[in-house]
């Protein structure tokens, strides 16, 4: 309490200083409290009727507003969740006391993402979901990304404790290049690694004003990439949200000791915002998460050449390749060793030939994820911004978000994202009618390493695979020796492994750590490190001509420019010769017009050009039909597209078992595909030899129709939202495997296994179709009880049989939330229980494919408010029943997380 008191002192001092800066004639001060609970209400808009003056209440509910008008004046007091209130002020001698009355806010929220112009969510022409700060406050989630998962039609792939990737309408996965995440207008994608890092480098929970989520094709407004949706996270403006806030969240996970002993979870976040004058405000935000991560514990046997799970274990399959076991990707047919022995010892020849009818594939002994992955996940975020109002309507913002941390990502292998750093810095000028923004994303992969490649190379560093004294030679000799003693095939393999593995470094010993730490710092292919330092520079602007063109239509135009600068010193991209630049630019125009009082039509178009690809125009047309005052039907035809990601263009990663390469034409020369052609691996396996040519890739596009209805029913207690969509992809981007002769000689069928394998990006020629629907119901009961139910279905059809679409989305999923934001004495208690179910589906990932069983989770929280000290106590659980689940083959197995938090000034 003493601490809080000192904060109060600092704050009041700051208020006094603020007053000194005022220079206007009349000043009204006041205080706003909740009429039910008596607690002060912060961030309430206080404006003067008929004048531009306006302000927000501070964290104690106090406001001061100055103007040049004569008394009496009318103050308009408004905030989401409260009834609009008008207060007439006749004199300034006494502070104005406002009893602010809570009101049902269902369907009253304002969104900007759907058209880049503020509008009521009920009138959005496309499907949009919104999460307010209040919703996050009462959500049963330790991390606000989990709240996103409760929205209709949203899937979140959880790679680890802090790595969560949302998507809508398909294509779940750790790295999702079809779904944009924007933080304060900045694309949050790590430009080199191609995944959005909002969960680890972005806003902290306290600084979120709102999250808007556009489902489906949305790139007509937000540029390439938003094929499946765009999530816009908007931070709290320090002019509006002031004061010091913090949350100290302490928790525990691994309570059942299944993966590791129970371990603490810490999540501390802090935000301090200060309005120093009516012109200048700033904020500082920071967050620290520290915990023991979830790990991947899928030890099933994977048949990598056919990309399916199979029966077997280390004990029963000599060629075992466990999903979350690394290093065992290296294998060899030990018949090479045996036939060598037969040459030396001809009397064993017949015996050896009798056991050599089929390949004897043996894999190196691997290490499990649990053994090699440092479980400490640390995430530190630091952000801040300076806001200066050049005029009352024009604000200049200088903002930066920087973060560092350790987490785990699932790509072609599991990646330990270690000491990863990313900074996003922007300068923005905005006005009611226009906006100019420039930002850069500076990425540094730190000591990030690939578990598979690192462990494979670790094994080589300890004992090389090939050679007369190599691991496979030792294994083959020991195997034969055991067979010659009558051991069964399996026992001989077990004995052989024991002999070849003599002296194998034990996890945790100095011998292990010395080698492992050396190898993981070496870039692939000798180690497993990614030295990615890719940067993105972007500038954009838009102008709303509505004030001029109002009589005819509301017109909005905008343009942007992006430059990627790939830098990995040849460890991730084909950039050994120096950084690779990629330029993209685009422009859009949008016009909307109220055709009648019941019909509004909006048309927009966007043109984008990437230096490596043909330009592309994407149109969008939407209509909103007003059925009643509070219900609308929406219709839209949207197109979206994406250029191949930076990795799809330029990646050049030797994963030991195969090479992952990009689609840029430069690779033709790098790997001599003109003189030593590559063949489709599938075709080679079947004995056909189909040459893979390397045409320039085309951007992937989707055209989508959507119809929806959103309306308030039953005296505005029920909000119903339904939608259905149908879309068609063209030039669908995926990957395929090709094989090339290692010697440069003519290709043979055996090269499908023993040749150089490449994974190359391709455009599918078939028209892949997608369709789905969603329905959501929110009902507000009396006494603040509410229930939300939603369900959605997403489908992909006409996928060619040999095509890996990685749609990775359940056919059906549903959420149910039962909550109360205030009940009991003085409505201090709150709770929420959220249940989620998703159907089983077949998962296709770069790491592994396999069936994902249905998943059910229950999250819950109870909270208690202490209004006087502005404290919010919360006891919560994510995955309350500790029912481990995973939502990607090879991803971490997620159990229960139980936490208790103390929040101060959480608004």
């Amino acid at each position, binding site marked *: 309490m003493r601490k809080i008191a000192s904060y109060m002192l600092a704050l009041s001092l700051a208020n006094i200083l603020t007053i000194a800066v005022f220079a206007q004639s009349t000043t009204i001060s006041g205080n706003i409290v909740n009429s039910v609970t008596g607690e002060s209400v912060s961030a309430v808009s206080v404006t003067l009727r008929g004048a531009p003056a306006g302000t927000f209440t501070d964290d104690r509910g106090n406001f001061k507003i100055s103007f040049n008008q004569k008394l009496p004046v009318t103050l308009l007091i408004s905030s989401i969740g409260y009834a609009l209130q008008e207060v007439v002020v006749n004199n300034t001698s006494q502070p104005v006391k406002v009893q602010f009355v809570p009101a049902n806010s269902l369907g009253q929220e304002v969104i900007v993402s759907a058209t880049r112009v503020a509008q009521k969510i009920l009138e959005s022409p496309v499907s949009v979901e919104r999460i307010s700060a209040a919703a996050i406050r009462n959500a049963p989630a330790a991390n606000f990304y989990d709240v996103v998962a409760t929205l209709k039609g949203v899937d979140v792939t959880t790679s680890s404790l802090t790595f969560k990737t949302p998507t809508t309408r398909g294509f779940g996965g750790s790295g999702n290049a079809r779904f944009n995440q924007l933080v304060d207008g900045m694309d949050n994608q790590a430009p080199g690694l191609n995944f959005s890092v909002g969960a680890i480098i972005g806003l902290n929970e306290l600084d979120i004003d709102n999250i808007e989520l556009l489902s489906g094709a949305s790139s007509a407004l937000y540029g390439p990439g938003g094929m499946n949706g765009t999530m816009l996270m908007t931070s709290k403006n320090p002019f509006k949200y002031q004061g010091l806030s913090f949350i100290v969240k302490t*928790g525990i996970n691994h309570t059942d000791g299944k993966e590791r002993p129970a371990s*603490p979870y810490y999540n501390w976040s802090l935000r301090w915002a200060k309005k120093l004058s009516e012109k200048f405000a700033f904020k500082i935000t920071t967050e620290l998460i520290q915990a023991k991560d979830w790990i991947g514990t899928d030890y099933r046997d994977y048949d990598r050449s056919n990309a399916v799970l199979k029966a077997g274990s280390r004990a029963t399959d000599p060629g075992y390749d466990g999903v979350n076991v690394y290093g065992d990707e290296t294998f060899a047919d030990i018949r090479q060793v045996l036939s060598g022995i037969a040459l030396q010892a001809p009397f064993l020849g017949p015996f050896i030939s009798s056991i050599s009818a089929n390949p004897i594939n043996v894999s190196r002994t691997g290490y499990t994820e649990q053994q090699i992955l440092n479980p400490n996940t640390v995430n530190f975020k630091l952000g801040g911004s300076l806001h200066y109002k050049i005029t009352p309507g024009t604000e200049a913002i200088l903002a930066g978000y920087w973060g560092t941390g350790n987490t785990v990502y699932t790509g072609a292998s599991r990646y330990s994202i270690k000491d990863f750093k990313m900074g996003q810095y922007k300068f923005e000028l905005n006005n009611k009618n226009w906006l100019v923004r420039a930002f850069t994303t500076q990425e540094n992969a730190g000591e990030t390493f690939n578990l598979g490649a690192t462990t494979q190379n670790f094994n080589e560093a300890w004992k090389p695979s090939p050679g007369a004294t190599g691991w496979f030679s030792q294994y083959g000799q020991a195997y034969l020796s055991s067979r010659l003693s*009558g*051991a069964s095939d399996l026992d001989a393999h077990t004995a052989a492994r024991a002999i070849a593995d003599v002296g194998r470094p034990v996890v945790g010993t100095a011998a292990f750590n010395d080698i492992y730490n050396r190898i993981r710092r070496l870039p692939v292919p000798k180690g497993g490190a990614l030295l990615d330092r890719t940067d993105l520079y972007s500038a954009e602007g838009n102008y709303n001509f509505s004030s001029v063109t109002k009589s005819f239509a509301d017109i909005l135009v905008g343009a942007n420019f992006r430059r990627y600068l790939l830098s990995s010193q040849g460890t991730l991209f084909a950039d050994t010769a120096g950084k690779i630049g990629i330029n993209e630019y685009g422009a859009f125009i949008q016009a909307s017009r109220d055709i009648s009082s019941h019909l509004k039509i909006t048309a927009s178009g966007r043109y984008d050009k990437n230096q490596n690809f043909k330009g592309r125009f994407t149109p969008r047309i939407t209509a909103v039909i007003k059925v009643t005052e509070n219900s609308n039907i929406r219709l839209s035809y949207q197109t979206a597209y994406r250029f191949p990601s930076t990795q799809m263009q330029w990646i050049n990663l030797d994963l030991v078992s195969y090479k992952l390469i990009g689609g840029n034409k430069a690779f033709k020369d790098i790997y001599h595909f003109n003189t030593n052609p590559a063949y489709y691996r599938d075709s080679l396996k079947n004995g056909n030899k189909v040459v893979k040519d390397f045409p320039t890739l085309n951007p992937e596009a989707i055209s989508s129709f959507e119809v929806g209805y959103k309306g308030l029913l039953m005296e505005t207690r029920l909000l119903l939202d339904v939608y259905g969509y149908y879309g068609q992809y063209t030039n669908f981007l995926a990957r395929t495997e090709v094989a090339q002769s290692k010697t440069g000689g003519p290709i043979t069928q055996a090269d499908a296994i023993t040749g150089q394998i490449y994974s190359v990006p391709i455009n599918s020629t078939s028209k892949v179709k997608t369709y789905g629907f969603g329905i959501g119901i929110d009902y507000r009961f009396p006494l603040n009880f509410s229930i939300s139910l939603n369900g959605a279905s997403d489908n992909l059809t006409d996928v060619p049989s040999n095509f890996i679409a990685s749609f990775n989305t359940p056919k059906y999923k549903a959420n149910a939330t039962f909550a109360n934001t205030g009940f009991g004495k003085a409505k201090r208690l709150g709770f929420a229980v959220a249940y989620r179910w998703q159907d089983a589906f077949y998962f296709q990932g770069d790491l592994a494919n396999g069936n994902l069983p249905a998943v059910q989770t229950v999250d819950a929280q109870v909270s208690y408010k202490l209004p006087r000290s502005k404290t919010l106590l919360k006891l919560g659980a994510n995955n309350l029943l500790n029912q481990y689940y995973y939502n990607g083959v090879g991803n971490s197995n997620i159990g229960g997380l139980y936490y208790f938090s103390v929040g101060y000034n959480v608004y």
Partner: protein
Amino acid sequence: MIHLIKKFKIAGLLALSALVFYTSSCNKDLEQFTEPVISNAGTLTLTEAIAADPDNSLYNALLAKSGMAPLFSDKASLFTMFVPVNSGMKLFINVISGGLVDINSPDAVFTGFISANIPAATAAALISYNTIPQKVTSGQVPTIFPNYEYPTILNPTGTSTTAGFNPFARLTTFPSRRGTTLWVDNIPVTAIDIPVVNGVIHKIAVLVAPPTKYLWDDIAASTDLTYLKAAIIRADSGVAVAGRIQTALSSFGANLTVLAPTDLAFKQTLTGAITQALIPVVTAQLIAFGLTPAAAAAQAPAVAFAQASALASSPGVFTNPALFSALTAQTVRGIVVYHVLSAQTAPFFPPGVRIFSVNIPATPTTVKTLLNSSPLAALHPGLSVQATGTGITVKGAANATPSNIIFPADRNALNGVLHKVDQVLLPL
């Protein structure tokens, strides 16, 4: 850190704990795949099956003595064992005891002999040599001529703790099949395919004793193969050690069938050949002495024969400088290698073949020799072998008549088998 956990627990985890640890299996665990169960035929292990069969009681005593019973009780292992019936064990013991143990003695006498007179190591070697480390049913024994080479579990270099131990050194055994009739080396199999959990048993008529010496040692020690020994040494003269025939005959890795002409055969052949070479010389000498050409021609064969007989009367014939021009090292080498059989159809290892007498078919069959491994003689027709019903004949390309394999044949050695023959085989 700990105090925070404690604090947290106190704060209310207790209230939740009932739910937390309530685990109604809601989310499925990883989908697992069932592995196929391998079922072995038979219910008894090798050890049990041998013990259970009264006709194997003497072999069972040998097994007990060897201390190897636990190995053959291991259900995970796989073996093929050639198990001699009691009559075969008796014959074996009768032989190795030098006739001291009468073949008609009661079983107890034989078991007593095994227990008292056969050292454990010897017993283990005997058992090991009759054991193949994989399951080979009768149907799996190829019918190819002459037989198929299988390693036994007998490692002649000792155990892994012995100096010079080579884990891959194995004495091999040579099962063969004609129709449903099986042999191992030259011993008939009397009952086939008795299933056991860890392999299969074939009963055999007599215990197959492991060889103990190399072909060269056998040749060198045989009093009736002294000419062959001398011929080999002559053939190897001027040849580096690695390329010598003697080296091959003394090497563990080799697998050879040697048709060994006896001293008598060499004498006959050499006498004849030298006589023929001497007749013109003697005839000229007699004419020089004053005989008429007709008289000289009439007397010369007898004189030449007498001289030739004297020259060929000892193995020294191969080292007699007077005959160097007639019996050049190359000529002798050509003759010697023509007596060593070779297979031409080996899958991927150097040619080698071990033909037991039982492997030789009733129809004349061509067998290549090491002579064929010379590029100059690659197309040489080789030898023709045949089981005639009364014996086995081998005919060289230039021999007027077939020679006979002298019984007892099948002198098995570490690196091959040797059959004595009554003629020197002539390639041309």
